């Protein structure tokens, strides 16, 4: 249930980002978050956590939109780059285990969608 910890982090980050806007924004419609596939997040649980934890905050009523980021890697032995078939962390060309993940560990607040009744600037 790390979804609740992460949901809490999203809510707190969103509130801080809204407060940093130069002009007060219109209502918050949605929040976009990138989640790497390695993070083992259950999307429905995270959405539920966000909706529960954002009640009575400036983020209340907004929708959490998740973007899944696939696991991409590079092989330091042969230079191959490509998608991994998790849970196998082996090079797609030479089968070496000498690989580095390029994507798939993301946990990032990407954007806020606000109603355009003012001139919100970031």
């Amino acid at each position: 249930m790390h979804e609740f910890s992460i949901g809490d982090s999203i809510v707190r980050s969103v509130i801080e980002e809204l407060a940093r806007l130069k002009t007060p924004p219109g209502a918050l419609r949605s929040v976009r978050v990138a989640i790497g596939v390695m993070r083992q997040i259950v999307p429905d649980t995270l959405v539920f956590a966000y909706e529960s934890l954002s009640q009575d905050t400036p983020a209340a009523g907004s929708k959490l939109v998740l973007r899944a980021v696939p696991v991409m890697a590079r092989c330091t032995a042969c230079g191959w780059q490509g998608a991994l078939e998790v849970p196998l962390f082996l090079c797609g060309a030479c089968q070496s285990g000498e690989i580095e993940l390029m994507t798939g560990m993301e946990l990032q607040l990407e954007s806020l969608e606000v109603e355009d009744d003012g001139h919100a600037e970031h």
Partner: protein
Amino acid sequence: MATQNIKVYRDLMGENEKWAAATRTVLAERRLAMINLIGSPGSGKTTLIESTARQLGARFRAAVLEGDVETTRDAERIAALHIPVSQLLTGGACHLEAKLVHEALLDLPSENLDLVIVENVGNMVCPAEFDIGEHAKIAVLSVTEGEDKPLKYPLLFREARAVVLTKTDLLPHLRFDLAACEGFIHQVNAGIPVFKVSAQSDEGLAAWTDWLLALRG
């Protein structure tokens, strides 16, 4: 009504990372090594700590931070070894976060200590997500759990710097395929050491503690 998109790009682990970095600073100042034991409930984490502390003795003086959802039973077991121990109760959370660990670290004696062993909450998923400032996450897997766990919990085995396979004295009674298990571990994380230990016979413990001694450098 028209809407506008405001780009943010903010790391959601940023707050946790800040505390983990603060812990790394304290560990460096005090010349301490810190490991984070992660495994399912009943995998033998507390028993591994008991036998590790006994094996290390005065060569590498250990303190323990015990993460549990409830009760101080594990801390009481460790206290019987006469080493510093602090119980971290998460009150329902399934993992330890960096801030709680940092505060507990500051409460440990600042001298006559070489190693901090953190026992995370029994769980193979969530604890693997959180950096607590440790030198190494250690996956603790018992031979009674099934050899395919590395494939089912790849993040843990990918993040771990070593695997301790516990309860190996039970192997003659089980259909646990040791070679397959090691193969799965290395498919997820090529080349990481796998220490096969038994707390009954102390078999394999010396190799594990030698590896720990080298951690601080």
